[in-house]
Each structure stands twice: as C-alpha cells, then as structure tokens.
C-alpha cells in the first residue's frame, strides 16, 4: 500500500481532494513525508513542514499523513491538537500575534487585544471572513523589553498603543 503512494508518479489516487491544497503542495507534502519516513519521532516535524506549505492542517491532510507514515490517525491528530503551533482551521494571510506575557500584561496588552477584537470582530484564534487577518495571543515572545509587543507576520513591534496597532495593520491586506 505505502509503496504505491510514492511510486505512482503524478497520480493523486490516494490524495483526498481539498480546495486549499494545490497539486504543487501535494508534491511538497510527499517530499516531506518521504524524507521523514525513517526518522524516529518525526510527526511534529512533518506537521510543521506541511503547515508551512499549506498554511494550516486540514483534517484530510492529517489522515493522509497518518496513512503515509503508517501510524494511527489518532496519534497524528493527538499531536496536531496538542501543540498551539498547529492550526486545523484556515488562517489569514496576515497573522497578528499580540503578546500577552506577564510584562506585556502589566503594561496593557489586554487593551490592545480588546481593541483589535472590537475593530475586526475577531476572537482569540479566529480569522476574518476575507482571511485578511488571524488574531492570536501568544504567551511571551521574550521581547519583554518592548512591552507591550505585537508581531505582525514576522515583524515585531514594540511599545505599542491600541491606536498604533490599528494604524500598523492598515498596511496589511
């Protein structure tokens, strides 16, 4: 069974149809799985790299990974649901991460979080319907010197106020 998946080139017979996963992504996914087949404890690594490719981890993909690595789907789902890095819901084009660590909390991170939630009608961990933003709270980015801090995609912004946060976000579509 498993052999077939990797040697029937260009066949997507075993690949479940999913609107968010393009053929190119499938190839990448197969490559990741191939590389990690014999590595002990590689589930986390496979999930991380697959999420980097697709943007999130649809349930169909989890099934496919479990099948290809020949481990129970419950185990893959268990890992994917345990770690906060993994998301099984579609995510936005821009990820807003508001630090809610102690130092930021003391300096008013909740004000920023509340303003963003109100303005974009978001909840913690949710995405706008147009997938423009995903709002997440993170537990300390270790940038306590910049408290309160916020990350937009990979860029860190420090000493922000709710107004500044909204202003910064206007540039992201």
């Amino acid at each position: 069974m498993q052999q077939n998946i990797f040697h029937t080139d260009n066949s997507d017979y075993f690949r479940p149809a999913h609107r968010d996963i393009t053929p190119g992504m499938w190839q990448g996914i197969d490559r990741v799985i191939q590389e990690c087949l014999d590595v002990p404890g590689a589930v986390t690594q496979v999930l991380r790299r697959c999420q980097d490719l697709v943007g999130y981890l649809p349930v169909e993909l989890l099934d496919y990974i479990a099948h290809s690595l020949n481990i129970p789907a419950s185990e893959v789902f268990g890992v994917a649901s345990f770690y906060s890095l993994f998301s099984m819901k579609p995510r936005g084009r821009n990820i807003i991460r508001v630090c809610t660590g102690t130092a930021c909390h003391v300096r008013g991170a909740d004000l920023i979080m509340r303003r963003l939630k109100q303005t974009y009608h978001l909840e913690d961990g949710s995405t706008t319907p147009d997938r423009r933003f995903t709002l997440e709270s993170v537990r300390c980015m270790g940038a306590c010197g910049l408290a309160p801090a916020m990350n937009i995609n990979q860029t860190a912004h420090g000493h922000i106020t709710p107004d500044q946060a909204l202003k910064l976000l206007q540039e992201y579509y």
Partner: protein
Amino acid sequence: MPAMNLQDLQSIREANRHRVEFTRNTCLMLCGGTGCRSTGSLEIKEALQKEITTRGIQDSVDVVETGCNGFCARGPILVVQPHDIFYHNLTLQDIPELVQEQLVNNTPLQRLQYKDPVSKQILPRQQDIPFFAHQLPWVLRNRGIIDPESIDQYIARDGYFAAARALLEMTPGDILQQMHKSGLRGRGGAGFPVHLKWKYASEEKSPVKYVVCNADEGDPGAFMDRSILEANPHSVLEGMLIAARTVNAGHGFIYCRTEYPLALERVQTAIDRAREYGLLGSDILGSGFQFDLEIYQGAGAFVCGEETALMRSIEGGRGMPRPRPPFPAQKGLWDRPTVLNNVETLANVPLIILEGGDWYAGVGTEHSKGTKVFALSGDVRNIGLVEVPMGTSLCSIIYDIGGGIPGKRKFKAVQLGGPSGGCVPAEYLDLPVDYEAISRAGAIMGSGGMIVMDQRTCMVDMARFFMDFVQEESCGKCTPCREGTMRILEILDRIRAGDGVIQDLWELEDLSATIRDSSLCGLGQTAPNPVLSTLKYFPKEYEDHIRNKKCPAKKCTALVKFRVNADKCTSCGLCHKNCPSGAVHWKKKQPAEIDPQKCIKCMLCLDNCMFDAID
C-alpha cells in the same frame, strides 16, 4: 578543515585575540538581539557601514553585530570599543553625525550618550552606567564583545579550552569533583545539584546515552535563555560537550522554542561551525571521544519545559509528563539514560572547568553558588537582562540596576518564577537571591523572570492572569491540575466580576492545597503559587473586591464605575480626546462626563487620565 588538536585551537586563539581585545581597529559593537533588532538595529548597521565606506575609514573601523547587550529598554545600542563608549536609542538620522563626531573628529556625541536620571550627568563609558556597574557577568561574559556567529572570536575568549581540558586532561571523576565543589544548581527553576544529576547518569551502564539542553523557555516574562543562545551559543554547546564527556553520551538535543527564530538560527550556525572545526563529531580534538547534537524545535506547549514532557515531545508524541521515578538519568529519552539541563546551567559549565570549582563557589550564599541571570521587566526604568551574584538583594536589583519605578508611582510587588512562582511585596525587598530564601517567601527562584509591578497592578487580576495561563497550558493528564485550575479560574473570575463571596477565599486556599499535593508534575504542583502568594500578602485587596466591590488598582473592568470624579478632574480633555466611542462629553473649563450608554469600557480614559479622576 581536518580535525583540530589543541595546538590548532591555541593558534586560532592567538590569531583572533586582537578582535576581542580591540587592539587594532576601532570596533562599533552594535546590539543585534531580538529587542534591538525590532527597534531597527539591522538598518542602523547598514547605514553605519555605508557611512563609514563613504568617508573611507572602513579599514580602521569594524562594525560588529553582537548578541543581546542586556539594556533592552534603550535599544538600539552601540558601544564603541576599545573606549567603551555607550550610545543608546539610535535612529537612522543620527548615523552621519555620529560617525562624523565619534570616528572622524574623535569627540563623543553627547546627545546620544547615557544621562544619569538622578544626577543628570553624562556617563560616557558603559562600565560606569549603574545598570552595568552592579552586575557580575559570568554567563554573559562575552556579551557585547564577540560576534555570536564567529567561532574564532569565541575561541579567542578562551572558548572550547574548557572542553579541551575535560577531554584531554580530566577523567569523568575529576569533572564530577569540580562540579561538586562548584555547588552549581540547576538554573531552570528547581535548583537540583548538577553534579548529582550527572553522577547518576554516569553510573548507568548503557551503550546509548543522551544529553539534552532545555531551551523551552516558556515562562512569560523570561528571556534569559533566548539571550544566552543568541549572544553566546557556543558556551552552551561547550557545556553540553563537557556533560557528554562526563556521562559518556554520544548524542545530544537542544530543545528550543519555535517562538525564538533568531536563537534557532544562531544555534544552528554555531553547530555547523563547531562541526567544521571538528569540535563536534568523531574524535574531538584527538581525544577519541565522539559527540554530535541537533536542534529539536518545540511546537508551542508550556508543559514541554517539564523534563519528562520534553523528552516525550522529542520522541514525537503529545508532550505530557510521566511519573518519576524512573528519573531521566536512569530512563529518559527513548528509555536511555539522559542528562537534561537548562541553557544557563550549561553555559556555566565551561567557566567552572576552566577556573575550578573552588573559584566558582567563592561567590554566592551558603547553598546557592555563583551568579544568576534575571530578565528584569515590567514597571521598572531599566528593562533588560541582568546577571548578579547569588545573595544580592532584590532591592539592589530593582533600584540600583533597574533604576526603580518610572514616574512617581510606588512599588507594589515583584513577581518571581513565572506561573510557578509568586509575588513578593515591598516588605521583603531585602530578600537575597538564594533558592531557599526565595522559597520561604512563597515564590521560587524559577528560571529568572523578574517582573516589577507598581500600584496600578491589581493582585487579583495578576493571580487570574497566571491561573488562566496554567489552565490553558495544563496538558490535561491529571485531574487536580486540569479541573482544579479551571475551578480556581472560575472563582477568580467571579471575584473580579464583583460576584465573589468571602467563602471563596477559603475555597481558593483549600483547592490550592489539593492541587499542590496531588498533581503529577511540577506545573500542577506549583500552579497555585501565584494565588497563594497574593492571598498571603494582599488579603485586603481580595476583601476589597468581595466586600466593597472595589478594585483599588482599577483594573477589573466590572468593578470600575466609569464616572468622573468632579473634584479631581482638571478639565484637560484627554479622556474626551482618547475615547474611541465618543462616550465622553467635555467642554472647556467643565469636568468631563461619561455617557454609560455609549461607554464600551475599553479603559482608555482611565489609562490616559493623569489625575486619577475616573472611578
């Protein structure tokens, strides 16, 4: 490069010495830590290089990107060596003037120098600034001196010579003896003696053993490990190599948080360089000993900082703790004997081997030796990374190094040890930094997060903050932690909403005791500490919330009335200007008024009012 021996190492040290002693060129040491990078130090580096090239002085001036300087509140930071001249809060516009004055005219640019907030005097040299003057940098000995990506510069600062001694001159027994003498205890929180951990693992007869570095620094408000990995990654590698030699392990892992991209990148570079130099791999320095290591990236789970959960996570499962014994030293990763130490602990090791255990034990208190790195943050002037000898008082850290509380506000408490620790009030400021003394005060040394809080912090809110954190991060394996923290959170929420009854306080204490006594791992056992310590030191604040339905710090939204106190209001209009929902009515020379219908309780008026006029 062919495998190196001791002579090669020595010649690299001699060849690069001028770069760490600054005997040839003027060196501009620019901080490239996460903090300074986010305030633009990379752009400043480019601008500096461009400006230096334009003026044609590039042959006599080097621009070096260093690891975290420590004084994060003042970033981006530049130190000009060998003169030790400190510049802070740089902007791109300052660069041409700075280069002209400092490098061409050779006169310091006073505008960007550090001014003492009390005496208003300019302190040009880094070592004179109180923030640095009161520290004892041992683990951070290379900060601001080496480029973290250069292994040569690390070797020039005697790097890998401790490993060489451990591999070529010492037996595992000698190493254990030195570690025993040094009295080094785990810096990750619990403070277990390092030599014992190593001894147990070395006594195991197993062909495969592991050394794991715990860099899963999840405590909110702690960034010591990140800074060490970013500034001095080779010291951790060297510490691991010595540990591996002691217990005879052949493979190692560095388990690092995925939230630390720069640390991950720098450690990977360090591993690659060390492999090129033959300092990792087979037959290291001609000793016949072999050791290699790899990075394992975490995936965002606080509980993975617990040793058994961390190892489960490396094995590819859900990071859940398991009961001990067997201890990791007997049965750890993949059931093999495993030595697991924190980043800061390992970074201490080369120093002990190089200088001797007795020398190391010369600093500190009776049971806590050496130094400790703290991440000082919150409501304090000089936020940053500080390293002090054990036994230093909290007061000295917060006031002498930290510069005290900004503004005219009063100190209220300092939080130590993150979610497992507690809040220490003003009466205990004389407390020395010592594992036992801090435990007696109801907090723990923890990994080193130190968050200063002023009078605007509500202690009930703080307890709720940590309980929310623990409740969310509880892995769910054992009932007391999973259910108990949820119940505590509910009670605290009730108190904050103004629906608390006095009975709740008894219940909090009772529940806390149950969770502490019956949870499986350290996360659960210490989870109630923030609640217990605030109950112990700030009982009045809880009573205010319950009996008087009042939050003295005005943090608990439900207990704030959002009414303007006309006696205190100076009609400045700031609340009106900042209100996002137009709920504040204000006319010149009249006290403001808040329309409860329109108010969305966003707290912005409270935050902006300078006269404490909103109740």
